[in-house]
């Protein structure tokens, strides 16, 4: 079961990272939170300490996705879970990231104001990826998708992953 959870965590986290980039153009909440972050702001998300992190970076008012990296440098904010099972609860649509944050299941290294921005973005991205029922539960209201789940997944599959130095 652990291996299955690990695989799901890895796939969903990658999908979330890619969706950060895709939804920047269409989702007003993401645009607003992106504006709150400083230029060149770089964030790393991982399922637990020491696991590879997906990297997203703000450049020219857009998110760029850098894929998975081991021990990346020049990171402004790192977010990871105390244990991979906690990550699975969030990435497997059992619990919202806000609840996980409140329950001390998340470790954050960096400025907490910016972390809150990223948590809002993460929450919206999850709402796009997950079922209507889960989306409403974590967002707290019936939200309007500006792009369908299928479109998002297809675009995510073909998204260009930035290479080279972060």
């Amino acid at each position, binding site marked *: 079961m652990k291996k299955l959870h690990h695989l799901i965590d890895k796939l969903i986290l990658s999908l979330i990272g890619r969706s950060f980039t895709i939804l920047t153009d269409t989702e007003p909440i993401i645009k607003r939170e992106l504006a709150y972050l400083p230029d060149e702001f770089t964030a790393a998300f991982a399922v637990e300490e020491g696991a590879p992190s997906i990297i997203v970076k703000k450049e020219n008012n857009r998110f760029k996705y850098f894929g998975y990296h081991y021990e990346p440098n020049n990171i402004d*904010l790192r977010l990871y879970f105390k244990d991979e099972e906690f990550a699975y609860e969030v990435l497997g649509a059992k619990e919202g990231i806000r*609840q996980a944050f409140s*329950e*001390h299941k998340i470790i954050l*290294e960096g*400025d*907490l*104001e910016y972390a809150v921005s990223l948590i809002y973005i993460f929450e919206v991205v999850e709402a796009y990826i997950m079922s209507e029922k889960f989306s409403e539960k974590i967002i*707290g209201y019936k939200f309007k998708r500006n792009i369908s789940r299928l479109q998002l997944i297809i675009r995510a599959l073909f998204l260009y992953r930035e290479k080279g130095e972060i």
Partner: protein
Amino acid sequence: MYSSDYFEFFSPVKIISGEHALSTLNYELDRLHVSKPLILTNQSLDEMKILDTLLSHLKNDSINQRQIIKTIPNQATIEIVKKASQRYKDLECDGIIALGGEAIIDTAKGINLMISEQVEDLKDLAGIETAHADMQPFIVIPTTSSTGSEAALTAVINDESSKRVLEFISSKLIPDLAVIDPTMTFSLPPRLTASTGVDALVHAVEAYTGLQTNPLSDAYAFAALKLIGQNLRELVKDVNNKKHRVAMNNAAVMAGISFSNSHAGIIHAVGDACEKIAGVSHGDALSVLLPHGMFYNLKFDYCRNSYQDILIALEGRDKFIETGLEDRALIAVNAVVSILNELRSLTGIPVTLKEIGVKRNQFDDIVDKAMHNSAILNSAGQVNREDIKNILEAAF
């Protein structure tokens, strides 16, 4: 709303409270293997002879003047933390004593982080649970009964170079010992006693309604509320009353333990934002916002249930029984409003944001700041910008 049965609760601080609590200090320093502490305080506490009171309780041969830093500012800063850390290293100190309020305690927490984690730049440790090393022995002697910092796992430290406020949240920041002696808080005047008491009241109320509310933090919050209900108004009427002062000091530390574990919520988030954007006092902002934040929370079932406990704590069993089930939460809010009104008539604590100097044209910035305060994530419901704006309008 999603609810979970998972919680974490951590409170390792040893608390010594009451008359002659300071007399145990030498014994406790020995127990913690501290022979050369660095003492942090400020000029006012020195002038009020509070520092002298502390020193009179320490072995004379253990302290030289260089071990005492009396220049801690009203807000903890990276710069003062760095300077004090250097002093700690130069003098080869082996423990920290913070004598004062939140800024002094936060400065001490910053020093402990820098020394224990051996970092050059404290900014590297900003965030949640970033510290892993064994910490230096850390003793807090609070002089205001409100902040609960003596039992809290947070520190807020200003970085003046980047004009940002850095937050540090870690179980490693909790002191080893809190000595709560009434002789150290007697000098607080009625207005400040009221304001700091309301701060403790907010901590206890918010601990009840955060997303991480749990049976253990509820127990501390309930006990704190009971003491606040029985003692705050009486203490404001007679600030030198030892019994009420000790009770409020205990209430503050219990409220601190509860909200440290179940987190603050919307009242703190908006209050902090008012403080940062409009430069108003933390205590005044919380006094004004408390009833409005509670009214906002009434729309959530679990908050209404929690507020029933607040009614028992503040008004007693008889009032609880005679109040209908549907009305209990609202009557609990009214009980809080009644405490605030009485404190206003006794000391003039504010009831509107306008009164404390917040301007309507600052609302957008306050909303933005509050929405990015991590406390907002722990608040009931998914708070949005409109919710905060409505609270600000109602409190204006």
